[in-house]
């Protein structure tokens, strides 16, 4: 009794349960357990404590693992009949209950496990491939959609650009027009400018227009806002003449458009003029006026 108590207190039984003893020490403990029931009991109690300790640290395995293990074992058990002789032989290669060195035996049995593992790897790779193809197809569709949207956006940008250019042109035209209007306003209020009203002749009694003449500066301007001449065609243009000492002097050609490009048109300069007249001439003008085609004329008032 005393012997067994001292033996228990050495702590060797704990090491036995933990698999820390060599084969000789294990045999010794097993002999002691067989001889002393209290040692047998002590070992049992230590084992239960360690088992509870392990259970308290349990981790649930993945769900499919159970099936995989059972399949593996049913394969082994169906083979076991033919392996019976081999097994009997390998039994002599005894595995003690707690030896660390016992892990090396029967490794050959584990080979099917690895094969199985590669099969599942191939299966998951196959799934990955299918998933990749699916993703690729989705990407292509998305890319196509994006391409559509992009060309739509490009068209919109082009049309907006076009609009912007037209708007800018309009603004610049309006600026010019505004400048011309201001000039017209300043001309009519400026005594150094002479306004000459040209009235219709026998061939076009409705026609009339206004010419501004700056005597000292010799400038001559045609006011498109106050012009009422029949529209000229593409092969003809109106030509302005100054009557200087009874002789006509060419002052250049102009057009009578429904939508004039400029409100105020500068003509050639003239120093002294008693009257102004306009004739319809061939495009580009003539050296001498065609008197029967004179549409308006007006005398400079002094």
């Amino acid at each position: 009794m005393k012997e067994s108590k001292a033996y228990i207190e050495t702590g060797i039984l704990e090491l036995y349960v933990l698999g820390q003893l060599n084969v000789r020490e294990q045999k010794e403990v097993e002999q002691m357990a067989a001889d002393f029931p209290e040692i047998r009991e002590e070992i049992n109690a230590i084992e239960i404590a360690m088992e509870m300790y392990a259970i308290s640290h349990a981790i649930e395995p993945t769900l499919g693992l159970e099936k995989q293990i059972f399949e593996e074992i049913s394969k082994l058990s169906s083979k076991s009949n033919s392996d019976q002789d081999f097994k009997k032989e390998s039994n002599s290669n005894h595995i003690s209950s707690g030896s660390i060195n016992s892990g090396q035996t029967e490794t050959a049995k584990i080979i099917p496990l690895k094969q199985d593992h590669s099969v599942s790897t191939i299966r998951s790779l196959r799934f990955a491939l299918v998933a990749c193809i699916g993703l690729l197809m989705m990407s292509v569709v998305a890319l196509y959609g994006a391409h559509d949207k992009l060309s739509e956006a490009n068209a919109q940008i082009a049309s907006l650009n076009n609009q912007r250019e037209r708007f800018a042109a309009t603004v610049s035209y309006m600026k010019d027009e505004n400048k011309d209007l201001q000039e017209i306003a300043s001309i009519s209020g400026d005594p150094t400018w002479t306004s000459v009203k040209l009235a219709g002749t026998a061939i076009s009694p409705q026609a009339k227009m206004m010419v501004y003449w700056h005597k000292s500066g010799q400038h001559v301007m045609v006011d498109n806002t106050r012009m009422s001449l029949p529209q000229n065609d593409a092969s003809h243009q109106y030509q302005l003449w100054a009557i200087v000492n009874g002789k006509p002097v060419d002052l250049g050609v102009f057009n009578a458009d429904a939508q004039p490009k400029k409100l105020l048109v500068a003509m050639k300069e003239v120093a002294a003029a008693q009257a102004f007249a306009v004739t319809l001439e061939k495009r580009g003008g003539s050296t001498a006026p065609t008197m029967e085609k004179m549409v308006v004329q007006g005398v400079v008032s002094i």
Partner: protein
Amino acid sequence: MAATKKISLTEEDLVHALKGKETIAIQALYDMYSGALLGVISRIIPHQEVAEDLLQETFIKIWNSADHYDSSKGRLFTWMINVARNLSIDKLRSKDFRNATKNQDIENNVDFIDSQRKITFNADTLGLRDMVTALKPEFNDVLNMVYFKGYTHVEAAEELNLPLGTVKTRIRMAIMELRKHFN
């Protein structure tokens, strides 16, 4: 846990069925102990896939080596735990595993596992962790090094720079505390 569906047999019946190569024995052992075995394996090998492969190897080894189990030498579950621990320690010390996990600090296995995986506590043992942590840590550390980290008690003594006798005493004290708790 669907307790009603799980198979549970007495140890004597289990041993008999296992030695008779009845597959129901493996199913019962799986239902009763797979979680606990994976818990032990995972603390030695903190890598889920490898640990589950080792759990499979463990059950195959239990199946193949059932003839070698001698109930006069110890309890069945303790024998199973030692099969699992030995396979795990062999794996831990194998070259290919060492190469694959060079960058992982093996010292931190227990904490790493506990933070990565949910532990399925047995209702009966709830509060054990508090109890164990309340234990003098130096006693418990030695037990955990040997039980959960794959150290031999000799290696643990070297690692902690303690006499072998002190290591043995501490292991004994830690297990005594566990026994007190479970009784």
